[in-house]
């Protein structure tokens, strides 16, 4: 068993926090309290959690437009994130980023990226910093199956291999790039073997299982920390929600989402395994659920009550100094 009791409870709490956060912002979006576009991570929680449990604040991640989960898992402040997504003062990005650019730079979460495939080249740079400055840090790019087809991702993987930098390419294959199936859009049908063709080891994992995901990510992080160069992981997973909130998902099969939510719910899978292996009791998990629910409610309530950013901030932080 990879996760001990304490680690498991931490993992469960993180996954539950992400799930509740996502459902709450979905509700608030429905009520008109959130402007713009929302792409939710519900269903994929075990991947961000399993990876980030192996990282410290000195390690770097870059994320996608579906980035709330990565930000929470990397230690981003949930209250500040809620404010940012609701476009309120005190938001993580001062109201200039929003859902698609959520970040926690001080925690090594270098930003969600709304350009599909925008992140992988950046993580090569973060890993290059780690190598050049000999900090021992690693960099992880979270990319979807959609981003796995972008040329920037191919270039990034090749350069990472050429420069032998400590970069992890985590591909979260949730089966869909927007409304097109990965089975159609990934020509090779297999993201891991395509990554391996660039000259790095590539692992595969069931992304709905936090135990396996944690273990696989640990292998990848250890590989990078020991100076063996980049590595890739393809985690299979499913998306509980549409590409964006409001997506009617007519491209999905009849009953598909319902079935996947029943069979591939990482929180349910985690609870069942943990209870069976006596890593946690039902009561312990219920207690966490309750605490997280209160925590998210508090964050949302505070964000709802917060004022909008001051218009005087419009032109701050375009440049580092007077322009």
């Amino acid at each position, binding site marked *: 068993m990879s996760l001990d009791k304490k680690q498991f409870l931490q993992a469960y709490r993180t996954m539950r926090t992400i799930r509740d956060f996502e459902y709450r912002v979905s509700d608030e979006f429905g009520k008109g309290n959130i402007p713009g576009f929302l792409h939710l991570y519900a269903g994929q929680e075990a991947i961000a959690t399993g990876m980030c449990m192996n990282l410290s604040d000195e390690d*770097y991640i*870059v994320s996608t437009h579906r980035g709330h989960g990565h930000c929470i898992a990397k230690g981003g402040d949930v209250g500040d994130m809620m404010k940012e997504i609701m476009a309120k003062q005190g*938001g*993580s*990005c*001062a*109201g*200039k*980023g929003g859902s698609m*650019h959520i*970040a926690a*730079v*001080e925690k090594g979460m*270098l*930003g969600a*990226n709304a*350009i599909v495939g*925008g992140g*992988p*080249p*950046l*993580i*090569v*740079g*973060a*890993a*290059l*910093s*780690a*190598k*050049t*400055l000999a*900090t021992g840090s690693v*960099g992880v790019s979270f990319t979807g199956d959609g981003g796995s087809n972008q*040329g*920037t991702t191919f*270039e*990034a993987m*090749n*350069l990472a291999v*050429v*420069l032998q930098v400590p970069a992890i390419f985590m591909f979260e294959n949730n089966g869909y790039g927007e409304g097109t199936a990965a089975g159609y859009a990934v020509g090779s049908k297999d993201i891991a073997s395509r990554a391996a063709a660039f000259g790095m080891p590539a692992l595969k994992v069931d992304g709905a299982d936090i135990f396996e995901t944690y273990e696989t990510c640990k292998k990848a992080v250890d590989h990078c920390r020991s100076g063996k160069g980049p590595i890739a992981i393809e985690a299979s997973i499913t998306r509980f929600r549409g590409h964006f909130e409001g997506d009617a998902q007519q491209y999905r099969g009849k009953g598909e989402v319902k079935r996947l939510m029943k069979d591939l719910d990482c929180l349910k899978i985690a609870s069942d395994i943990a209870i069976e292996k006596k890593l946690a009791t039902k009561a312990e998990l219920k207690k966490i659920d309750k605490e997280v629910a209160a925590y998210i409610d508090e964050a949302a309530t505070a964000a709802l009550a917060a004022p909008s950013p001051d218009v005087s901030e419009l032109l*701050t*932080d*375009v*440049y*580092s*100094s007077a*322009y």
Partner: protein
Amino acid sequence: MPIKTYRQAINEAMAQEMRQDSTVIVIGEDVAGGAGCDGERDAYGGVMGVTKGLFPEFGESRVIDTPITESAIMGAAAGAAQTGLRPIAELMFMDFLGVCFDQIYNQAAKFRYMFGGKAQCPMVVRTMAGAGLRGGAQHSQNLTQMVTMVPGLKVVCPTNAFDAKGLLITAIRDNDCVIFVEDKFLYETSCEVPDEMYTIPFGEANFLREGTDVTIVGISNTVNKALAVADRLAAEGISCDVIDPRTTSPLDEESIIESVEVTGRLVIVDEMTPRCGLAADISSIVAEKAFGSLRAPIMKVTAAHSPIPFAPALEDAWMPQESDIEAAVRAVLGYTR
């Protein structure tokens, strides 16, 4: 004072900064050259030899040869700049902006703002622009206008060796992403360049020649052409103010406006296509802010609205020439309402 070429001045700025700041790295295609080959390392030192000698001094951890992979080069530089390094990334020809622009304008330029001031991106993109070497449509363009329009980027266009060294040192120490546009016609030109380090601030234009009849603003090498024209016209008693903005972002609007307030006439020269270019931009600023001072319509001397042709006869016709600048100066002087 020692005489140095534009190429030597740029090389010296990088070497001196790298000596005093171990976080400065150089990354790009053939910045040393010879990686993985049987022959010599540092075989190129950049295709124009501008980074020659950095590899032997600083080694492969700080002078990094990459594959031909502009998107990954720019992205890696941006990611490295966010995490403690100060990369100088080389984009061999400015035309190649097309294969990496996302990493520059959507990523590097936006980090600070998009993440609420919590991120920074201290990187320099050194790139080479300019027509006239018969490089054809994809190795000749000056796309300064495309980067100047992007908030978050700073854009530098040095027109002589002295400025090149001082501006590059400023660029390397700057905490924003700076696009440093080298005019490939200037590498062999030389002037006095101090051995010691010095900086030239961004946003401060250089008055190369002071006059009272016509203001000529030039961008990149066109400023040198403007200067030659102004020298010739001086013999006829025509007195031109020749202004080199040195940086197009930030742009020293004030100096241009002050000059126009004296001369009342403005000719703007750039080697970019005419629509939405620097000449159009400066023209609109002056029309808005100094309309009352103008005694003649503003004249733009730009390249033609076409891809850059290969044949010398065609390329020469495409580019703004000294004769075009002279004609524009005479036209604004001869204008009567």
